[in-house]
Each structure stands twice: as C-alpha cells, then as structure tokens.
C-alpha cells in the first residue's frame, strides 16, 4: 500500500459509499435476525446478534460514522457562518414590479420587510437578502454525534454490563454480596463487575384485575442504602431506583409468599419455626420444603382467596383475602397428610404437628449496572433533537435584486432540501410585496 493510499484511508473509511454499503449489509443482517426470531427463543436471538460477524459490522459502522462526522463537522459549522448568496444563473421565484421608487428605496423596503419577518439581513448596493435558520445545519452535527455516542454506549453496555437477581423478603436487607444474589451475569469477576448497592425491602404490595393474573399494582417500599431512614422509595416494575450517575438500577421484577411454619411435638412444644420463601404463586403452583427435625417433605399450594367451586378448592381472586393452604406431607413416597389447612389449623404428622402461623411477601429484585445506559439515553435524545432541529429550523434564504430596467425586484427563495414546510416563502414574499406597495404609495 502506497503512502498516498494510506493518506486516503480516512477518506475511504468516512466515505458515503461505504456508509451505504454498511447500511445495506445491516438491513440484510436484520432480515436474517427476523427470520431467526420466528424460529428461536428471544434469548437465542440476542445471542445471534452478538456473534462476531455482526460485531464486525458494528465496528465498521462506528468507524464510518466517526470518520464521516469528523470530516463533515467543519463543513456544517462553515455552512452556519455562510451569508446569503444566490447563484448568478438562478431563476427568480417572484418578480415584483414597483413604481415611483428608486432601486435603493425598493431594496430598503424589501430589507425592512425581511427584517420584520425575522430574517437576519445582508444589505449591500446590489441586493437585499435575509437568512433564517442559519444554524439549521447544526441539527445534522448534533444527530450524527448522537449516533456516535449511542454506539459508544452500546459498546460499554455489551462489554461492562452486570445483571443480578435477588430474592429479598419484607423487612430484610440486601448488602450486594455475591451469596445474596440468586444469579448474576457475568458469572466471573464479581468484585470487579458488581455495583455497590444496598437496600431494605419494607413492604411489597400487589393488586390484580378481577380474578385474572393481570397486575394492576406491583410495588415495593424500599430504603436504599439499606440503613437509610426517612420516607421509603416506591419501586415498581417499570420505575427502578437509579444510583451512581444512572449507571446502576434496582427494579422489582416479581413477588411471592413466605409462610412461617411452626413445628411442634405432641405436647405442643415448639421445636422449630422459620419463614420459608416459596414459589406458591400464582395459584396452582406447588413448592416444597423440609425441616431439620423430621425426614418428611412438605408440599404446599396456596389459594389466596379460597372458595369452593363445583366441590373443588379454588380461588376467587389473586388477592390475599382468605388464604388457605393445600398441604401434602410425604416421607419416602408415603403420603402421611393431604388436605387443606387454614392459617389457624394444624396438620398432625406422626407425633408432630405443623401449622402456618404467619405470612409475608418476598420480592424478586433485579440489580443492573450498565454504563452504556446514560450514553445511549443522551445519544438517542441528541439524534431526535438533531433531526427535528434540522427539519423544523431549516435554513431559508431570500435575496432580492433589482431587475433589468430598474422597475422590478427579482426575488430568489432557497431552502434546505430537508425542511418540513414548502410554503415557507409565502409570508416573506407577501411582506416584500406589501412593503414595496406601501413605499410606492408613500412616495406618491
């Protein structure tokens, strides 16, 4: 490769042609992803999207975008500084005749009209011109830098993201240690990746619509950090707590019940009791636990709003209005108890009795550390602002020059090709016509 070719490399990387090729390849890549998304689980699609060929494509996009943006930034800035001008061979958009006015007076009147229309003026002996939306080109600058920031954010998110799930009961504290998480990803280098976060779950509240499993409320009252006092923060499924410059979030993702079992001997003496986090919600789900003293396994189902339906136990709603447990006790595949249990009742099992004497809720909490989020938030916002800026505050130029003979003005109107209006020239042209007519009348 010659020195000249190497010198041209940035130009090649930032070329429009390469941009179009990359966008074309990306479109083809998305078609393949769409086909995969009909065939594999969503998690599989995410996995495919992370494979090397696609990463190469994104790196190429980033390089191209960065080179393009760097190359064009001075041009966009120069365009903002550029004054009004009209090409010599341009065709006038309107010819406005006037009488009883000198060329100078006509140009002055046109300049005043443009000024009244909020155009910044250029006035010399030969023309009166005005510009609006001079900084419209900055929209492109903002949106393209926004895209660069988005890609940087995506890179940070792909390579430095931590997600952990934890199960925390009402009244319990979470200090962010590895053993408190039920799972976390990436599974290695916990100390390096995990965020410093702590919280306390005070209360979990859930409400449902009719008897359907359709949440109309799922919220947890929390304190973060765990030892903090004062008013709790309400965390919802779509309203996490943010910390560390919006890079760390803690959100509620689900909930369940922790019944408190009490094991007694035949004399009624309490032998053992504990809260046990169980997956017995939604109704119909069965979970089991063991206690230390006896070899039995306790299988539990919950009817949160118990009723009989066609002679069978059922729940009227998902709300905890009238909880009844279905308990099955088994030892070595021999069932020793199988029946319904109210919170006040005991199940007798071979000289022992077990009762559920309390119930609290637990929350599944997701902790995410993602340094890419603030960058992507800012980047996508800049893309939107930049686009709308360019389309709404587009550059428009108006130039009035005396026509041949000196009794008419040739008016030229030019606007950015990316504008949301094509009737923008009507008002300034009407204003110039009116100004000339008024000036003629005054001269009479």
């Amino acid at each position, binding site marked *: 490769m010659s020195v000249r070719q190497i010198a041209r490399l940035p130009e090649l990387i930032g070329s429009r042609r390469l*941009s*179009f090729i990359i966008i074309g390849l990306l479109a083809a890549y998305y078609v393949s*992803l769409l086909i995969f998304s009909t065939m594999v689980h*969503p998690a599989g699609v995410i996995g495919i999207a992370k494979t090397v060929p696609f990463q190469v494509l994104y790196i190429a996009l980033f390089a191209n975008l960065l080179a393009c943006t760097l190359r064009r930034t001075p041009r966009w800035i120069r365009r903002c500084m550029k004054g009004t001008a009209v090409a010599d061979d341009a065709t006038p958009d309107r010819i406005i005749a006037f009488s009883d006015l000198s060329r100078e007076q006509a140009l002055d009147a046109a300049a005043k009209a443009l000024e009244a229309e909020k155009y910044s003026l250029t006035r010399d002996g030969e023309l009166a011109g005005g510009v609006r939306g001079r900084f419209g080109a900055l929209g492109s600058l903002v949106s393209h830098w926004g895209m660069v920031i988005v890609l940087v954010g995506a890179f940070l998110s792909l390579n430095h993201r931590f997600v952990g799930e934890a199960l925390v009961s009402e009244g319990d504290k979470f200090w962010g240690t590895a053993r408190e998480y039920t799972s976390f990803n990436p599974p290695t280098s916990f100390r390096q990746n995990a965020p410093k976060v702590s919280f306390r779950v005070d209360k979990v509240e859930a409400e449902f619509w009719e008897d359907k499993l359709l949440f109309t409320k799922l919220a947890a009252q929390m304190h973060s950090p765990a030892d903090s006092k004062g008013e709790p923060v309400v965390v919802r499924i*779509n309203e996490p707590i943010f910390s560390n410059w919006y890079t760390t979030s803690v959100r509620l993702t689900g909930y369940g019940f922790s019944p408190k079992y009490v094991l007694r001997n035949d004399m009624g003496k309490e032998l053992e009791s504990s809260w046990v986090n169980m997956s017995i919600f939604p109704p119909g789900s069965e979970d089991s636990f063991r206690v230390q003293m006896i070899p039995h396994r306790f299988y539990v189902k919950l009817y949160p709003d118990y009723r009989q339906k066609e002679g069978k136990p059922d729940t009227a709603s998902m709300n905890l209005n009238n909880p009844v447990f279905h308990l099955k006790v088994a030892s070595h595949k021999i069932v020793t108890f199988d029946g319904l249990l109210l919170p006040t009742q005991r199940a007798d099992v071979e000289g022992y009795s077990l009762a559920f004497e309390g119930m609290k809720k637990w929350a599944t909490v997701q902790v995410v550390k*993602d340094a890419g989020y603030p960058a992507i938030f800012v980047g*996508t916002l800049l893309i939107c602002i930049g686009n709308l800026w360019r389309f709404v505050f587009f550059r428009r130029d108006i130039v009035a020059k005396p026509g041949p003979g000196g009794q008419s003005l040739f008016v030229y109107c030019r606007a950015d090709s990316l504008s949301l209006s094509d009737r923008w020239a009507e008002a300034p042209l009407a204003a110039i016509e009116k100004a000339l007519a008024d000036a003629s009348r005054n001269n009479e």
Partner: protein
Amino acid sequence: MLIEKSLMYAAIALYIAGLGCARWRLLRFAVAGAFALHTVAIAIRWVAVGHPPLFGTYENTSATAWFMAATVLIVLFRYTGAEKTAFITLVTAPFLMIYGMTFNLARVPLTISERSLWVDFHSLFAGISYGGFVLAMAAGLLGLLKKGAELDDRVGFRGLLWGFGGQSLTLFTGVVYSYLLFGRMWQWDPMQTYTLMAWLLYALLIHLRLFYRWEMSRILALSLGAFIVVALSYWTLIYLPPGATFHTFDIDSRTHFIF
C-alpha cells in the same frame, strides 16, 4: 360499548363513502365527519378503560387509522392539488379498522408494565410516524403510476421527514422504557429489528436526497420498500410464534387470519 361500536361503524362507513366521492370537496367533508365520529369513539373508550386506547390489535388499528385520517385531513385542508395522495393515504384506514374489530373488543385495564407516560408517548410518536410514512408511500405509488404532480412529491417527502422524525422519537422513548422495564435497552425483539431496519432505510433515502440530489419522486418510489418493512412491523407481529415478541397486547392469543 354499543355507542362506541356504533360510532366506529359509522366512521368506517363515512370513510368508505368519502373514498367513493366523485369530488374532492366531498371527500374533505366526509373525512372530516368520519374523523369527528372516530375521535368521539376513541374518547369514549379512553374514558372507559382509563388509558389511551393504543393497546391490542383493536385499539392499535383504530389509533393508527385515526393518525392516518388526521394526516389526510392536514393534506386536504392545507394543500389544494394533493388530493390524490390524500386519497391513497386514506384507502387502507377503514379496512384497518374493520380488521381491528374482528379482535376482542373487551375493555381491559392496562397491566403495570404498560402503565407509563413513556409508553403513551412511544405510541403517540409511532402513530405520527406511521401517518407520515403512509403519506410518503401514497406519493411514491402515485409517482410510480405516473399519476402524481410535483406537489404530491413535495407533500410525500414532507411525510417522509415527519415519519422519520417521529420514528426517531419512537425509538428514543422505546429504548428508555425498555431499560426501565427490563433493565435492557435493546433485545432484538422483532418489532425493534423491523423499526431499526426501517429507520436506517429512511435515513439512507434522506441522505440520497441530501448528497446526490435525487429527485423526490425517485426517493418516494424507493420509500415503498421501507414502508413494507414498517407495515410488516405493525401488522405481522401477532402472527409470530407465542413469546417471540413483547409487542403484542391482545388479551386473546388467537391467531387471526383475515383471508
């Protein structure tokens, strides 16, 4: 529900009647009348369900048709001479509404994952962008059939820019909400993939106009391809296998075939 359904049917009938009008002036009044009835039907449902009716195929088709009709009204009342573009823009709206009404119309409250202003604005911008893109598609179709005038191209290109701006905002609100809800900004959900693909294709077309000064009619004709992607993203998700996307909000998981 009866009033809402009656208003919807009346609006559909009036939209179709408008399409059958021999004069543009009559089309204008028919669309305005149908739009008013449609707006009242949407308002009634909004009050009844307590959220903007934008979820599930029935509400989604109704809202999208409303945005299309609003776009048509703007064109009809603002641009004399671009009626053909407005006409084509409107063509699918009443049939979209009929299609939507074959789904479950039950009034269901939103689940907590859908209750957010972010979601409302996300849908609002999506509706605006769809209206713009349909307008661009209509102008592109007219151009291909050699029936369009310069004004149709200009109106269509404005539609494309509106659509692109609206879609950028849809992406922004979607990305933010996805992070709030799932802790992940992008999940390669089919809807996200379709939208990103369409956004890139429209961006490509805008750059072709900007850098190579391609004629609007050519850009609009090419935008038909991008519009197919947009239309697929709106109307095919419900036919994907269950669990493939989180962008379906129908309370019944039946697969509906209109054929």
